């Protein structure tokens, strides 16, 4: 009997994991277009580690959002993220790890590969505390510390997260439309790629290596595991301390349901006294109270009744789940359309058409984007060095600041007296993204730079960070009317900018005197 139970539970868990992974990555068409989803459902965070820069993702990653919220907490108190995290922690705890997290599923599947395995030991138990160090250091301290330097730095995302490398970076890179992104790959990508490969290979030999030793999100959920509403519980008065659950469990628990337990439920079937059960299961499905004096017939009736309830509950759950998933897949892939970009919006005084006859460098940036801020000095230098050669450098700040410094404050501090023009992007009603940026081919990643020649033709585009030399070289090319580098596969190179955004009038940023 026990033997039968196990595969059944594992199978069901796998199904739920797959289901959750599909539901939170329902924007399948994103993989086909190579761009990320930009709709309003990204207002909400998904429960598991699921990178928001993955083309399929339809929600925000809780860990990435938390780091960004902390990194911008100087301006907006991150009540929203605190609330979301508390909600997930208290409702699910690490049940999310066992059932809902896509990266947990990937690790589970990798561990299925038949090789000799390294089992838990005292060493792994000690190592399991490492994730708490990472949580404090990379998710809390570093982002907060860099906030004081006005530098957004989600340190875990940037230096460690393999889910980001796999779901975000690699999924985007694979698509031909993003070929330009290869230009920006360097030491950081090499490090993160090697780390991701090491973690994935490690997961083949060590059960959930990332979850047990590295994941700060699991660490956070673990802290609330004992009091979370869902999960696994141990009834101490029934437990005879036989140690079978502990032996069965593949993670570094001390007790069932503690901060390491991922609520997978595998130990339920091995407990000889049935001391382990799902939390809250009795509310949904109270246990059968069969009176002692009941006849055989009455007992069968009671048992049948229960079986019927179980069946109905399952049926309802299955129908709800299937329809939700089907609905999400249809909505995200066939119904949802990004609000139409109207090409004649904006009430400002800046229109790129006014600069016909000059070479125009357009740089898209944001004070929340550390890469953008890093490359601005190069643009500033080009603006001064080429000021008398009919070259205009325009920087377009995103319409929102995402809780970061206002651009005018940043410019006042760092770019005072610059020859660059500073304008702000606009947004179409109902859109979550910037219109000018999108009209000029922005795939959702920042920074982005375009260079137009004197006829307004897009000569060069890149989503990579630029240094002075490469930028100056491209400007020189445009000045010399050298069109040999135009790659029509790459974003909107070769198009006339006026056709892309005929009359978008952006507002100049009011500079502080």
């Amino acid at each position, binding site marked *: 009997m026990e033997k039968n139970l196990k595969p059944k539970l594992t199978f069901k868990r796998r199904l739920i994991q797959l289901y959750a992974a599909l539901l939170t990555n329902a924007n399948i068409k994103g993989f086909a277009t190579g761009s990320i989803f930009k709709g309003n459902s990204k*207002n909400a965070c998904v429960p598991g580690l699921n990178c*928001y820069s993955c083309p399929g993702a339809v929600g925000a990653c809780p860990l990435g*959002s938390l780091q960004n919220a902390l990194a911008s907490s100087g301006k907006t108190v991150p009540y*929203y993220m605190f*609330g979301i995290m508390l909600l997930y922690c208290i409702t699910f705890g690490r049940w999310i790890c066992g059932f809902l997290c896509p990266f947990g599923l990937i690790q589970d599947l990798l561990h299925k590969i038949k090789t000799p395995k390294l089992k838990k030991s005292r060493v792994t138990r000690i190592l399991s505390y490492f994730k708490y160090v990472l949580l404090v250091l990379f998710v809390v301290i570093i982002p907060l510390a860099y906030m004081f330097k006005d530098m957004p730095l989600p340190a875990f995302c940037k230096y460690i997260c393999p889910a980001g490398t796999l779901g975000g970076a690699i999924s985007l890179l694979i698509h031909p439309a993003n070929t330009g992104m290869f230009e920006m790959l*360097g030491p950081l990508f090499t490090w993160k790629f090697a780390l991701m490969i090491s973690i994935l290979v490690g997961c083949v030999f060590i059960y959930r290596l990332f979850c047990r030793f590295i994941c700060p999100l699991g660490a956070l959920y673990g802290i609330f595991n004992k009091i979370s509403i869902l999960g696994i519980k141990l009834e101490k008065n029934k437990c005879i*301390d036989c*140690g079978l659950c502990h032996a069965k469990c593949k993670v570094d628990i001390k007790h069932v349901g503690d901060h390491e337990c991922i609520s997978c439920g595998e130990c339920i079937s091995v407990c000889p006294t049935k001391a382990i059960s799902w939390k809250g299961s009795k509310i949904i499905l109270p246990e059968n109270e069969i009176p002692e004096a009941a006849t055989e017939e009455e007992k069968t009736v009671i048992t049948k009744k229960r079986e019927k309830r179980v069946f109905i509950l399952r049926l309802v759950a299955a129908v709800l789940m299937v329809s939700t998933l089907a609905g999400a897949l249809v909505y995200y892939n066939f119904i949802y359309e990004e609000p139409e970009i109207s090409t004649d919006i904006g009430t400002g005084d800046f229109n790129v058409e006014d600069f016909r006859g000059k070479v125009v460098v357009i740089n898209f940036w944001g004070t929340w984007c550390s890469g953008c801020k890093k490359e601005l000095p190069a643009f500033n230098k080009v603006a001064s060095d080429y000021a008398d050669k009919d070259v205009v450098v325009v920087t377009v700040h*995103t319409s929102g600041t995402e809780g970061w410094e206002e651009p005018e404050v940043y410019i006042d501090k760092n770019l005072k007296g610059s020859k660059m023009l500073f304008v702000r992007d606009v947004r179409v009603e109902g859109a979550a993204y910037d219109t000018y940026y999108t009209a000029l081919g922005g795939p959702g990643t920042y920074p982005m730079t375009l260079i137009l020649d004197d006829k307004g033709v897009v000569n060069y585009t890149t989503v990579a960070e630029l240094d002075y030399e490469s930028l100056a070289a491209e400007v020189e090319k445009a000045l010399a009317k050298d069109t040999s580098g135009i790659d029509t596969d790459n974003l909107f190179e070769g198009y006339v900018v006026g056709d892309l955004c005929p009359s978008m009038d952006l507002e100049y940023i009011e500079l502080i005197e």
Partner: protein
Amino acid sequence: MEKRIKIHYITGLVTAALVLLLGLSLAISAAVIYFGGTEQPYSRETVGEYLKYVLPFGILCILAVISGIVIKFVFPLEKSKLLPQSDEFRALKRQRARLEKKNAEALSDERILKESLYRKKISIALLAVLSILGIAALLVALLGNYDAALINESVIRVALTVFAVALIGGACAYVAKIYMAASARREAEIIKELLNSCESLESSSAAEEKVDRKPLYMNIARASIFALAVVFIVIGIFNGGMADVLGKAVRICTECIGLG
């Protein structure tokens, strides 16, 4: 070794080797591309070129994984036989520890003490070897000659040292593990024997000693935290926190996801 177990064992080892090779070849390819010396090391073409070398490992790996699955179904095996330091052993030890509290005499045994003493010694020896290796590697890394112009060579030298140390350390640890597993199996037998001999002790159930604490305070805590979470979310919607989450999720700073 039984033939069936042998088949499983060999498939497992071959798959493990292939997985390691695949991982290694991917990581090395990235390193070679990056250290290749050009200013813009990565391009779709270069990556494609290197993936050609990795592909055979990938295919072999997939084949090995598939054969592993096939073998699992064609020659089913009881799982415990494959586990050197079996789950059962851990459970037995825990059981023994519990019973030992009640009847230390009946369960103390010379042989067990001996086994665990040897294991401890081997652990200490292994720790010492690993520490020496670690210190040696650190010295090589710290005392090396660093020249900014030759930084790639220096990094490769450090990487090679780390790799060599990891290899030697891994080999030592594996040998130690084989001994430990054998010792654990011997100990499990002894414990089983001992536990059988004092099974009567088991009858005194632990149940009466423990009483579950009433979950009322827990429910109050849950409800309060839940309410707090909802309040925070509502405040967050109005103070712009939610818009910030959306803004960051639809506009990606490439450096922040490691594209840099």
